[in-house]
């Protein structure tokens, strides 16, 4: 057999292999929809209010708040921005509108929202007292000085968390961490996922909202899986007097090392 025939066949063979590998690579790419189904849609009343407050309030505290709440690394806890100085009445009417437009809220949902608004009012009253201390540093951790589920700001430079809340958050984080296994291939990767969970009084997780995706489907899914696995969490301490609590967790692959 002549040499050029060998070269020709070698090129054909190589091209065939490349085609086969490409063919085996392409069809699987469409299978990433499961994640979208898992990321549950929720009415984020607090987020809406925070965003609105930032644009309209114009006060010192609102300026310091970033658009998206991102938790500070050491605490692994984030809180949704809350209106600190903004008139509560305006926030209430706005949130109701948005909720109605997006979700066609049922009566039950509305009553829940009203409960939350009442909670927020209480907290806003509380924070109004300490706004001169907390507002200015709110931007650092990106969390603001207060949150609906967690009335005491800490990363934002506000009033530190009271021991009961701290203990509760740490309990939850320990439970999540102990159940979480970083998928093998992602272990050494620089990934970060921020998840906001809403916990009911009895510890049930009623809402999981992915605030920031890592871009790695398996990694994000492992986090959602673990959050479903740890449900129910310990109930919210009665001393906190809250029906719901929203907590944000930042998941880094290095957390388990």
């Amino acid at each position, binding site marked *: 057999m002549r040499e050029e025939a060998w070269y020709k066949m070698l090129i054909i063979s190589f091209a065939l292999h490349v085609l086969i590998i490409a063919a085996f690579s392409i069809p699987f790419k469409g299978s990433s929809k499961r994640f979208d189904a898992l990321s549950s849609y929720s009415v984020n009343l607090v987020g809406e209010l925070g965003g609105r407050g930032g644009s309209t309030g114009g006060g010192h505290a609102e300026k310091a708040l970033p658009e998206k709440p991102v938790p500070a690394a050491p605490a692994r806890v984030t809180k949704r921005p809350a209106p600190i100085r903004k008139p509560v009445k305006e926030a209430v009417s706005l949130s109701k509108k948005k909720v109605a437009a997006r979700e066609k809220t049922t009566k039950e949902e509305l009553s829940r929202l009203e409960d939350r608004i009442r909670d927020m009012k209480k907290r806003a009253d509380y924070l109004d007292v300490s706004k001169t201390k907390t507002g200015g540093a709110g931007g650092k951790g990106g969390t603001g000085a207060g949150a609906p589920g967690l009335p005491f700001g800490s990363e934002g430079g506000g009033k530190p968390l009271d021991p009961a809340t701290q203990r509760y958050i740490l309990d939850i984080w320990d439970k999540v961490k102990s159940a979480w296994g970083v998928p093998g*291939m992602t272990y050494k990767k620089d990934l970060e996922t921020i998840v906001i969970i809403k916990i009911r009084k009895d510890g049930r997780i009623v809402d999981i909202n992915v605030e920031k995706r890592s*871009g790695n489907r398996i990694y994000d899914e492992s986090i959602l899986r673990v959050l479903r696995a740890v449900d129910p969490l310990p109930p919210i301490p009665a001393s906190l007097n809250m029906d719901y609590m929203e907590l944000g967790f930042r998941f880094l692959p290095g957390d388990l090392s």
Partner: protein
Amino acid sequence: MGFSSLNMYSGGLLSLIYSAGPVAKAVMLILFIFSVISWTIMFVKFRQYGRTEREGERFFHAAREADSFKKLITIYRDNPDNSFYRLILACYKEITKRQKENNPDIKPGIVPIIENALKITISEESTRLERRLSFLATTANASPFIGLFGTVWGIMDSFREIGVRGTTSLAVVAPGISEALIATAMGLAAAIPAVLAYNYFSGRLKRIMSRMENASLYLINIIEK
């Protein structure tokens, strides 16, 4: 799309290869090379054997038609690059050699000599047609083991990570094993076509050799006429 932007969990083959460890990557590269070469051999042999078989058909057709050796060699002179022509050429060389020695009585002594010459030619042709076929056998035998080596190494790595992290969660173990198993899958993907092709070409080669032996008998008959 660069490799860095490749979503490694999209589930594709490329992403699995990309996310594999260095040993697994080396194993897969070796298997890829084995596979490419074995497929090249398959294509070349397919053409080569096909052509030889067609030439065999043509030879028998010509041999039935030709009543003398001279006529046969005239028919074949236009296509010298094939195994059956080499048989005729071997006979021709022996005959011309005897004629140069001015031996008037060629026929009684020349037949065993031509027989030997034909046997040698058949053997040479067999070697030529069989060349590189052994690589298919090597691929068929070695590839699964090479792939298995990659898998064993990957699983070792997975278990080590389980030990380091202290968790046996499926989410930790499964991706490592999935990575590891791709090496075995590639080994099998290289080996299975090689086994099938080796058996197929071996059978075909046997048929060609058998036809060449028949052709040599035909030639002796023609010379003896």
